[in-house]
């Protein structure tokens, strides 16, 4: 059942996207409702999986997977017949469709499943052209986002990771602001170039893993790669760099962030919400899930550098915020600052920092996503986001003012709201970290000061002061009211509730998260820290073949020399691709 739910979670939006594309012209107005329905179904599914998590952890250990699905997807290479029938890959590359959610990815999936219906609902009045396409892209994006978090196979992760680019490219490029083409292209190229390098790193890592494990089949399995031993420290440093290229751009870390403000400014509200709420987390999640456990020595080696970049991002982003006139750009820069915190916590290499970092991802998704929603609602009415043209809206729109204030306060880490818990733990970790150290904590803490400065500047400009409205506004022609409509309140209310709830009860997440982090990541990186500490005494760690593949003949990998004379060589095709059907058949009795 869990597996079914998870696969539905991944594939249902894609199917819905296709259906919406095929809707006839005269039924086009059902597209928003249909996609909202799908979004709500996703939310229910995600929550159901979330509820199953504690039980799963209880019975199957801290890194238990909910909705584990593992089947062969693509296998390229030589196959051998098994005596009992069926074939097995003995030499080549194996890509699996392996999905499952553990305590680290599940909060993010729930976050995604929450933000998707909200961003669908917020587009009802904002999107008036090419609606079917719009919702189809939005749902396709959803598949990508959930798939990324659910993937347990590195290549599958990469596929979903790239899959998120295309829908967002169109969402920005078609329904964006005046500079949308440029913004979309910049966003696409920027992130794509980085992730290509990451892809090279992934492939290298997988090949090396096969060699180190004496395995002739190249596998991208997450568990396999996360428990790999024997990579040299130079390799790890380079591999970390490869991961860095893709993920740091996505996060985005200072100085690679320049695509973000533009993309946010030009994107439609829903695009901004999902971009800030979920897509930026792909980068941080990538670091946490892959860079840390797969190349722990590399991560430790680069930790101070990463911490430095994170700090630079915190301060730089915050100061940039302060002088923005476009409120959306301001919130975008605040994301740069906030994700700096997230990275700072992660590279403190302390349990509390890692836990805070994941919490930060969720919290940032909630509060910044909500801020973008609020800004979008203001924009829909006033057709401007210029801080100098707006003012005193609190009197016009008290409900909006309430929500805006709440989310702004959450964003600047007011205790009692969600932002505080993660910010505090992250800074505490940075401060206490042996890898980073005091000054990282001190400088990072200036972020809480600067955060208040810019956020209150924005709040003050928009909500306070004498009333300022651009001429001929608010534009209520689309059926909006002066203050928020019930639909808009319904969009913001769940976020508001969560903002408070996670502020007073962060253990809703951390109780399951902490053991999972400990089992999967903390242990790995702390080993590496130890190694870095007694580098003089370092011995090559023992090779522990941890994969449980059946021991068929260990065929030597085909080398370049063997491939040299293919034209004159064997005529029979070496690579026959097979579309493997059922997992049992392809696994060959695993």
């Amino acid at each position, binding site marked *: 059942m869990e597996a079914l739910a998870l696969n539905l979670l991944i594939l249902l939006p894609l199917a819905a996207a296709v259906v919406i594309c095929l809707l006839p012209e005269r039924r086009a107005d059902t597209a928003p409702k249909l996609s909202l329905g799908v979004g709500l179904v996703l939310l229910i599914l995600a929550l159901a999986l979330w509820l199953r998590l504690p039980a799963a952890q209880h019975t199957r250990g801290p890194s238990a997977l909910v909705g584990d699905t593992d089947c062969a997807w693509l296998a390229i290479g030589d196959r051998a017949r098994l005596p009992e029938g069926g074939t097995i890959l003995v030499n080549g590359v194996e890509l699996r469709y392996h999905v499952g959610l553990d305590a680290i990815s599940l909060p993010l999936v729930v976050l995604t499943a929450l933000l998707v219906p909200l961003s669908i609902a917020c587009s009802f009045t904002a999107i008036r*052209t090419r609606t079917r396409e719009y919702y189809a892209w939005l749902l396709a994006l959803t598949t990508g986002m959930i798939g990324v978090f659910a993937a347990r196979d590195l290549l599958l992760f990469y596929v979903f990771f790239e899959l998120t680019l295309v829908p967002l490219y169109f969402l920005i490029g*078609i329904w964006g602001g005046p500079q949308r*083409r440029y913004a979309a292209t910049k966003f696409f190229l920027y992130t794509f170039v980085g992730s290509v390098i990451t892809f090279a790193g992934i492939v290298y890592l997988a090949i090396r893993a096969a060699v180190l494990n004496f395995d002739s089949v190249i596998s991208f399995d997450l568990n396999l790669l996360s428990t790999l031993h024997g990579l040299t420290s130079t390799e790890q440093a380079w591999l970390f760099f490869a991961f860095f290229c893709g993920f740091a751009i996505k996060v985005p870390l200072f100085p690679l962030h320049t695509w973000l403000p533009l993309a946010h400014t030009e994107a439609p509200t829903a695009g901004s919400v999902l971009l800030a709420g979920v897509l930026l987390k792909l980068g941080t999640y990538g670091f946490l899930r892959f860079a840390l456990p797969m190349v722990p020595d590399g991560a430790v080696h680069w930790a101070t550098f990463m911490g430095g970049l994170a700090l630079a991002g915190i301060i730089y982003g915050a100061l940039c915020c302060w002088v923005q006139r476009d409120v959306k750009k301001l919130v975008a820069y605040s994301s740069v600052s906030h994700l700096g915190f997230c990275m700072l916590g992660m590279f403190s290499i302390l349990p509390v920092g890692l836990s805070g970092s994941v919490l930060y991802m969720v919290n940032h998704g909630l509060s910044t996503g909500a801020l973008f929603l609020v800004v979008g609602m203001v924009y829909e009415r006033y057709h401007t986001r210029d801080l100098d043209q707006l003012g005193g809206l609190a009197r016009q729109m008290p409900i909006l003012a309430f929500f805006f204030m709440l989310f702004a306060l959450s964003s600047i880490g007011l205790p009692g709201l969600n932002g505080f818990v993660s910010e505090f733990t992250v800074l505490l970790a940075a401060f206490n970290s042996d890898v980073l150290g005091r000054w990282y904590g001190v400088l990072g803490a200036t972020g809480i000061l600067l955060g208040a400065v810019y956020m209150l500047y924005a709040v003050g400009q928009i909500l306070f002061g004498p009333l300022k409205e651009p001429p001929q506004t608010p534009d209520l022609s689309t059926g909006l009211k002066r203050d928020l409509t019930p639909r808009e309140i319904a969009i913001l209310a769940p976020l508001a509730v969560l903002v408070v709830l996670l502020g007073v009860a962060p253990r809703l997440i951390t109780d399951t998260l902490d053991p999972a982090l400990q089992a999967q990541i903390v242990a790995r990186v702390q080993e590496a820290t130890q190694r870095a500490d007694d580098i003089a005494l370092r011995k090559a760690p023992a090779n522990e073949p941890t994969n449980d593949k059946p021991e068929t003949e260990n065929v030597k990998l085909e080398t370049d020399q063997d491939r040299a004379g293919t*034209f*004159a060589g064997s005529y029979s095709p070496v690579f026959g691709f097979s*579309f493997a059907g059922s997992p049992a058949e392809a696994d060959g009795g695993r």
Partner: protein
Amino acid sequence: MPTLLIAILTLGAVGLFLALPGGRADTRRVGWVVLAAAGAVLLALLLQLVPGADPRGLFAGFALVAVFAALRVITHRKPVYSALYFILLIFAVTGLLVLLEATFLSMALVIIYAGAILVTYVFVIMLAQQSRPAPYDVKSREPVWGCLAGFLLLILLARQIELFLVPAQRTPLPAPVAEAAGTIEAVGVPLLTEYVVAIQIIGLLLLAALVGAIAIARRRATPRVESEGDE
């Protein structure tokens, strides 16, 4: 041999250049003479290479017809004739396929190509028929570069084929194929077992092409309408 081959092919290139539509009628005639000379020498060369007595003459004949038909297809100024020469080419190739003991395939070729595809072509040509030869049929486009590049490619291909067949030449002739060679059964069994997925895909492709062709042809062409920009 290589120099000879290069010389022949260069000659062929010059001939073809002259024979392509565009020049005056007499230069085209000169071109044909040159082409014929080159073809003759090449044929002699090829025949030298074909061992055994029996298929030699047949091969030579079919090859000659094929090359001649091909040349006419690309040099003729009237599209209808080009299409008709193409049918000739098909028949020549069919003959060659029979020589290669691919009887089923040869029949399939005739039926599909000559029977279906070319008929379509002829229809379309009729549809776009103009009273006088169109200017674009009379004058060819960059014949120098085309011929040069094409024959350069041909020379290189020939050299490559030769290079890689040299060791193969020493091997004895392959055993004659089985009785059922080239029959429907011989081709059909692998087609429906080993290549079953591929054939499904091909079927899908054909279907898609069909749908696409209908979709394209149904569209009402509105001349020179700028695509809708939302900038």
